[in-house]
């Protein structure tokens, strides 16, 4: 799946949790949770939202690899079929 489509999906899910955040303003290489104030419940809802939107299974063991926006895009692109 194309990185841009994944990025758009991330933006849509993030907007439901932190509506004030403009995805374009985020540094894709910096830790997401330092830039967007997401508590553990917010982060869980974020993962659930990505799972529902992209049909990608995201095991908890993989959370540690999902630090920056760039990490997330790479991970989801690789996981997503097609």
């Amino acid at each position, binding site marked *: 799946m194309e990185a841009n489509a994944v990025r758009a999906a991330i933006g849509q899910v993030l907007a439901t949790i932190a509506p*004030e955040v403009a995805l374009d303003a985020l540094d894709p290489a910096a830790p997401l*949770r330092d830039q967007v104030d997401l508590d553990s419940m917010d982060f*869980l*809802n974020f993962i659930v939202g990505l799972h529902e939107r992209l049909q990608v299974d995201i095991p908890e063991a993989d959370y540690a690899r999902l630090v920056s926006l760039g990490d997330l895009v790479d991970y989801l692109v690789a996981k997503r079929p097609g």
Partner: protein
Amino acid sequence: MIEFKLPSLGADMDRGRLLEWRVKPGDVVKRGDVVAVVDTSKAAIDVEVWHAGTVHALLLQPGDDVPVGTAMLTLSGADEPVEAAAQTAPGAAERAAAPAGPAGPAPLAVTPAASPEPALGRRRISPAARKRAEELGISLDTLAGTGPDGAVTIEDVQRAGSAAVGAAPAAAVTPAAAAIAERMSAMRQTIAAAMARSKREIPHYYLATEIPLEKATQWLTRANAERPVTARILMAALLIKATALAARKYPELNGFYRGGKFEPSAEVHVGVAISLRQGGLIAPALLATDRKNVDEIMAALADLVKRTRAFSLRASELSQPTITLTNLGEQGVELVQAVIYPPQVAIVGFGKPIGRAWVEDHSLRLIPVVTASLAADHRVSDGHRGALFLAHVRDLLQEPDKL
């Protein structure tokens, strides 16, 4: 004839302003019907009635700002006997004094009004944008957001900052934005009043201890590995359950101090401090916490966080916490020394879990550790009992499968 009174929504909300009636004399109402919309410092709420009957008279005019417990309307032909406890607003002093009171629904329930104002739940401004606006001296009320759903982004603030040079500040405050700003200010005042009262009246004592979370973390990792993402559990659920069980064991930390004496609560309703994205916090009760299993607590917590941020809480949740828990979570710092929320007598805090070198059984390991704290009311309990309470929380978290 039943007098229907304005319910309390917690110790810090002692007044409400009638926005509108949803009923008129002669209307037949049933349990759960919305009879009025009342504005409090935290939200506009729908007030529901828990008696069936016919509206006889409306005793207030829209715009009236009245104390909790003021009669709002009278109902005739009520379908059930009028019990003292059922007639009393949930926040009134009699509430906890009547542990044998009705076990059914609270006399009143409150749900958010379909208010014409934009929901305060999401004043869509990031902390960074708000900070920048403050630096630039721009009123947030004047900003139009260009982010998703009208969210104000930092770019909007910058743009307004450039445009505002030379312009009269805050000249174009919209009524809706002004109402939001007013409510935020009111919430801050409400928190200030409750916390000032706490610090004035309650002789706090403070305890803290480090709790190893190795077993709890391992248990969660195992449990969550088998679960779909939608059924995963957060550490917060374990902390809440352990706190509830310890509160049941040490009743002098669970209840209310009112009228110069302590009223222990037979029920454990842990209030969970939930921060709001735009600032401020609310600590609604996770009802009957000690009787829920961890999965039920997780589901209830997720629901409570969602509804709190949408200002969709019931009166019973706002007025009933018997002890409060504040959890700084992963993005916080190690220790919180919290302020008791009156008339409660204790508040438990959990800091950010961090990796620590831990010595146990003559071996040194790196494990996650959380600092748990207790602030409690010295009029009711002593440090010795408080320490036993915290130690019990620690012990409970060493056997997570039993929570």
